[in-house]
């Protein structure tokens, strides 16, 4: 295909062990904070009802993004959009399927008995 770049180009983010190691450490620290935060919301009764659910959902979303960024190395770099596009398309399909299912089943449930 092609040859490696000239020897004097600085190593990219993906060729430097220190930076790659740091990525995992940052991911771990952020994930620990977010997880602990989520459990703290419930254990310490920081929020209740809908607010608690919304906060938990948001924390989960952020943590998923953290895992994708720091453990799976998905980012917004222009050079490689295929993986990102694929995961965004997957998210679209997931949203359609999950929200549709929940909408349909709850609607039927309400009309049946509740």
């Amino acid at each position: 295909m092609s040859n490696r770049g000239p020897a004097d180009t600085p190593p990219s983010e993906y060729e430097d062990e220190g930076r790659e190691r740091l990525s995992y450490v940052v991911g771990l620290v952020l994930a620990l904070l977010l997880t602990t935060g989520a459990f703290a919301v419930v254990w310490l009764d920081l929020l209740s009802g809908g607010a608690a659910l919304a906060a938990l959902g948001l924390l989960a979303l952020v943590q998923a993004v953290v895992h994708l960024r720091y453990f799976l190395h998905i980012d917004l770099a222009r050079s490689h959009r295929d993986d990102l596009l694929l995961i965004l398309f997957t998210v679209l399909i997931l949203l359609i399927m999950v929200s549709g299912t929940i909408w349909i089943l709850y609607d039927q449930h309400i009309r049946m008995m509740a």
Partner: protein
Amino acid sequence: MNWELIFGQIKWNSFVFSGAIENPSLSEFIASGAGFIAVLGALAAVILLTVKGWWVPLWRDWLTSVDHKKVGIMYIAIALVMFARAVIEAALIRAQQLSAYDGGGFLSADHFGQLFSTHGTIMIFFVAMPFITGLMNYVMPLQIGARDVSFPLLNAISLMLTMAGAILIMVSLVVGQFSTGGWSAYPPFTGIEFSPGEGVDYWIWAVSLGSIGSTLTGLNFAVTIYKKRCPGMTLFRMPLFCWTTLCTSILMIFAMAPLTAATIMLALDRYAGFHFFTNGDGGNMMNYANLFWLFGHPEVYILILPAFGVWSEVVATFASKRIYGYTSLVYATMCIAVLSFAVWLHHFFTMGQSANVNAVFGIATMVIGVPTGVKVYDWLLTMVGGRIRFTTPMLFHINFLLTFILGGMTGVLLANPGVDFQVHNTLFLVAHFHNMIIPGVLFGMFAAVQFWFPKVFGFRLHEGLGRASFWCFAPGFLLAFFPLYWLGMMGATRRTYMWSDPSYLPWLALAMAGAALILAGFALMVAQIVVSVRRREQLAAPLGDPWDGRALEWSIPSPPPEWNFAVLPQVTARDPFYEAKKAGIAYRSPAAYEDIEVPRNTATAPLIGLFACAWAFALVWHIWWLVVVSFVLMWVVVIVRSFQTDTEETVPAATVKAANEAFLAAARAAPGVARDREMTSENRGRALPEGLEGRSGPVSSRAPVEVLP
């Protein structure tokens, strides 16, 4: 020893023949007859293979092959065998309904239930799916200029899993009964309470095997199209068939998972007493319909999109014209693919959700008609101003345009929940979806067989018999299904094995006549293949381009060599081969040849298929030792394979060069055949390029330079 420990729930009276002995009736005799045919067919195959000494070639050249072309052919062979069974079942269904006035008929209700369940299951999962998969397998890598798919072994494994599912369904003819729950197998009827016994389990495991195979296929093809296109083949230079293959693959990747989830849940309900879809204890059978159609609606587009691709290739080739509105066809395909995930509720408008929910999905359903309409106009406009040759594939295409539009109209009608409440669960619906799938998918596949057969085997199919079969299929379809629209509007419900309204009779008789015509069409198609094989010398077209084709697959010999392309082509435009012919630069020798690495044949895939089949059979009959053993063996095969390092072999450049130069020399020397002579024995597969018609004699063979610069 304990019988049940060894044989699970199989008893002597599980075999179909015992029914005819214990309870003689026409229905039982027909069931036994079908069982006999299955057993005799298998025996005949074994004897033929033994007498001809074909066991070794079958194993060495076919079953262990990972070549995408052979895998594709085997897929289509499965589809044709299963089609023979399911089309006969369809004729039996029609005959029963015709004869069943006031409780008559010759089939028992239970037998009739099995017939429509196997008919639907087979036609979708083991005819349509293997047919499109086989076709995509064969054609797509050739069109994008690749030597194989990205993961050849995985491809063979998908094939073997599909074959395992097909074998399981055939076994159900002989051992035990099949489900009576229809192809969609709605619980609670298919739960253990109302359907004890092995029938639903056959359905669950056969469908699961097929759906796992399809997921892997989708993955494989998507990666192939993304990563293996030849130099210069940008996405927007791909033939439309490759675009529809890509969209179908993406649908397969995402749509099969809900089906797997639904079948796992149904299996857990039946085997382990879970409560996903049961009547009591918090089960919710409506979720089954929801999950099933999350898969089921994208599934219909999985089937139709490759056929759309075929139509695009056929119409451009036989109108001798560049396809009209390429870009719009691509975007229409994408729109259809995405929208197909947003309409699944229209399959159960009447399940009780509120009108607003129905309205949203009804509107989404109508919207999907728009991109489909765009495609229809593009195909029509391709024909405008073209020089149309009315070959068999083209006849199928014109028939498709006419009838598919009518089916689409009834689809838009059904998308209105108000109308759907009137005609749901009637023969109107049956007429509608057959109207989409037969002229669209099935005839699309038949057209594809006519179109690509010379590429695959090196000789054309007999044109006269092809047209004869078309003239049985097309009116046969109209006769068989248009009366069902009327019957549906008169209130005839689907899946009933008897009826009592005398005004149904004439319509049912017409439908029966149509079924007979379709059977005749199928017989003629089989005859066409047999006759063509016998006359293969006259029909030979080894030079690869019998129809004045446009995409890369026509630039190589027929049948193509194992490595497809001696040198990977370099593409600079759409319709690359057609452009090269016009510019007079086709069939030039490449500057240099290189060694080619091809994957070795391996027993991995057939062994996995064998153990998967045994595993599924054991699950159906609760033979637990076999479940464990075959499951372990399946994974042992995978692990053993992962330790093998020597999986490829090299074809030396000299071999490639000798074969390719011989082909190019023959092609250059051959006189081109003009389009009006393409159905004569003059057609050896060297087309006279457009603009040179009228001239005869060999086209000048220029100095060998770079191929397709």
